[in-house]
């Protein structure tokens, strides 16, 4: 089973560890109430179908990535870098500029 790491290319899933729902937003530590924190820490949806989830390339580039996986078929349809590694001048922009 391969996961297409956006930094390393397609790699064996055994190089990765699972990190859960990628759409969660950490509450604002200055304003959020108990419910927001409780939802962030404990409440998880159990969606059927495409799911955006975090995987950690623990035995590769060590980056966390966002993988789209169908929870019914386990098919992985894509993967993208997290915000930290989305530089405004992305690699593809540089390539286009070079060409």
């Amino acid at each position: 089973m391969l996961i297409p790491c956006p930094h390393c290319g397609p790699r064996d899933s055994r190089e990765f560890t699972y990190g859960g729902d990628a759409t969660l937003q950490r509450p604002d530590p200055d304003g959020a109430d108990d419910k927001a924190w409780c939802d962030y820490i404990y409440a998880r949806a159990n969606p059927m179908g495409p799911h955006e989830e975090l995987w950690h390339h623990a035995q590769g580039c060590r980056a966390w990535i966002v993988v789209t996986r169908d929870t019914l078929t386990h098919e992985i349809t894509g993967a993208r870098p997290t915000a930290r590694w989305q530089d405004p001048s992305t690699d593809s922009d540089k390539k286009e500029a070079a060409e």
Partner: protein
Amino acid sequence: MSSYRLPNGGLVDRSAPLSFTFDGARYSGFEGDTLASALMANGVRLVGRSFKYHRPRGMLSAGPEEPSALVTLRTGARREPNTKATMVPLYDGLVATSQNRWPSLEFDIMAANQLAGPLLSAGFYYKTFMGPTAKAWMAYEHFIRQAAGLGRATHEPDPDRYDKANVHCDVLVVGGGAAGLAAASAAASSGARVIVADENARLGGSLLTEAGRVNGQSAVAFAEQHIAALATEPGVTLMPRTAVYGYYDSNVLGAVEQIADHLPVPPTGLPRQRHWTITAGRVVLATGAIERPIVFPGNDTPGVMLAESARTYVIRYGVRPAARAVLFATHDAAYRVARDAARAGVEMAAIVDPRPAPGEGAKALADEAGIPVMAGHGVMKALGGKALNTVVVAPMDLGTGAVTGPESAIAADGLFVSGGWTPTVHLASQAGGAPVWDGKIAAFVPGAPRQAWTDAGACAGTFALSACLADGARLGALSADTLGFAAKPPPDYAVEDDLTSQSIAFVRKVKPTGRAPKAFVDLQHDVTASDVALAHREGFQSVEHLKRYTTLGMAADQGKTSNVTGLALMAEARRQDISHVGTTRFRPPYTPVSLGALAGFETGHHFYPKRRSPMDLWHRENGGDMTPVGLWDRPRAYLQDGETMTEAYVREAAAVRAGVGLVDVSTLGKIDVQGPDAATFLDRVYANGFAKLPVGKARYGLMLREDGLLFDDGTTWRLSETQYLMTTTTANAGPVMAHLEYHLDIVWPEMRVALASVTDQWAAVAIAGPQAREVLWMAIDDIDFSNDALPFMGVRQGTLDGETVWVARLSFSGELAYEVYIGAHFGLHMWQRLLEAGQPFGIIPYGLEALGTLRIEKGHVAGGELDGRTTADDLGLGRMASTKKAYIGGHMTGRPGLADDRRFQLVGVKALDDQPVRAGSHIVVEAELTEPAESLGHVTAYTYSPAVNAHIGLALVENGRARIGERHFATYPLKGHHVPVELVDPCFFDPDGERMHG
């Protein structure tokens, strides 16, 4: 050779006789035999006793579906139970024994279970023994388990090696029979990489047992030519003896190659088996079909066998399976069995066919061989006990199963049965929808694929040989083409003797008159037709309930010969079509897989990678008693002549407090944290403040999980404005790193911080004791170790013999102590240099146990207390948590559950009667060891303390701080320990910390 071996024919090498024993008796066979064919050639038909009733059993089949002929192979450490005699290639010196019989196979005392038959129906044991009280079951279970069962595994360690490998291909063909070989040739013609895997020792499948000619050659010659041509194709890998057992996501399949199972002992350097993880572009499932038995009384009598299997014994092994036989079949193709058996000299007494009008081709075959056909008849029962001697037949109505005329008895020692064919849909079901009932062939065929596979040949319900070849070629080519290859047009195949096996749905139990033996559905688990009826009567009518109530299909053969007949009987009982009853879902493995193959080489010290400190070898060579700590080995203590472990660690701990000691702490997790925002980052990561930590200082930090519970602790040193060295506990080094990366990548992507694991880059020691400073003065240049210049928690850089070292004045032991870090390659040098420098001060190396003693005396926490359930406040560290800043876990720290005064809090325990207090003991109030007792908490760590001169420990006790001074008992019922203890302050020694600040 006995009269059962034919004078010629068969694919056995008569110039290579092999000797073997079964139940101690010596026999001989030929190269190319299986154990089953060799036994049959020697006239041995009784090979085992059944699971529950201890009924005599012989060979039902000649292949992987065998439910009955299970034997124990080999002896000693290689003893292997429940091997199918039909799949064991014969080798010289093979030793096999029968199973589940006592004292002997011929005379088995437990066969008395047959007399108790009505009592032993489905659910009997549970109803009888588990119903009234659980105690009854506990009393009887041992005897029941003793009486039921199959073979017994060895208790010795497996002496053989196992291998694991991965392989990728474009087209994987599972099954090397007619369809599979045709598919492989077609796919290979495109240049695609092709693998053909087959569980049998020899590729060819049914081609090896065909009497007719293919493309003008014998079927065997055709197969051989095909296989030889494939073997020369550069992109083709042929894998005989390789059972594909599981079909997983992303078109990954698991397979086990039997490399040395056909040899007495694996040759030097070769594994016994190799596990293959196969990743395929597309898969052609050419897994064939399994012949279906018919359920009638006595259908398990030795001598009753599947028809095509009887033909296999004749054609492939040159063995006569009976002297006089009856064929009981429901379809035309099975008539070939009668003809070929007759040609081999079996006297075919009759062909019994419940159909009123068999096909013309079938009749012609019977006429050609001069065999009487009893159309519209069924077999009522088979009699003979340990060997079939009589087949009772009667005219019957095909529609109702009712007997319509008088019974007649036929003397026979063989009864060849064929109720049609069941496609081998196991892998297709694992990776696809539920199998679909095809009324035209009266069989379940694969459902819709959920992975990239196609079913070909008999697996798809295509039974005629010509159609299998054409189907395989077409789908092999299509599979390659789908992947972007261009296959060449396949050749035409001309097949002689090409009757189809289209059958009728005849699996029902015929309804005999009078007394009759049991009619079996699942021969391996002794499930009878009456058990299925009982399950129906008691309401277990869904297939999943039927399976679990009767254990139908749950044995090692997973119901290969019994599933469909069981379902048909249930359908009949429910008065529904079998398509409404459906099947249970097939799950891996298709065939039993040895644990050794799954473990591969990851056993013993290869079970996980070993991490070694740079000083590892020194520890081992100097009395270090090594113990695993995560992936590391660490010395518990350095044993001197004649010392016990306790004596050693007490000596070491005392020596540290009296002078100086050195301990290897290289295993601590170390993370380099750099960047302009590093200070802010650490301030968010730790519960206590880090923003104002000055350069050249270290701080002890508490790391929380987001839910407010303690995650890890350690010191972090500020090396420069923008660089920190974080240390973690040995156990949590990996999780902490992932935790920090998570927050940088996802929560605070804007922070300019970079992380690098440097655990392996630094060798580290702690030097502790009143003389520690003096030793460092001697060994390290460029650092002023005076108390003013390097105060408690100070960090300095210096050099040791020219190499850079970092020194931090930290103390886990409560003594004046320092941690010294040096590049890993110089770790051993540093270790030896410090021991040398410390010699005048009596320095000693100390291990984990003394490290534990020193920290327990101080009440410092470690893994036993940081157990994932405790908060900072539980451990008396609540005041460290900041109230002025936001940090991970900060919000949840305030939730009510974490402020409850009934929480378990850290206390010390001191034994009152000079006995050890075992870690894991529970604190109870009862003065006598009683069960059950209410637990107030548990002991997390224990040591004998030379400084306090007492047995002491740490414990987590409910509302513990308020209980200090109370006297209770530490109880450990498993070992009968019950020790009076006093709950005390967790810091036993130097509570004001004068020693470490000195």
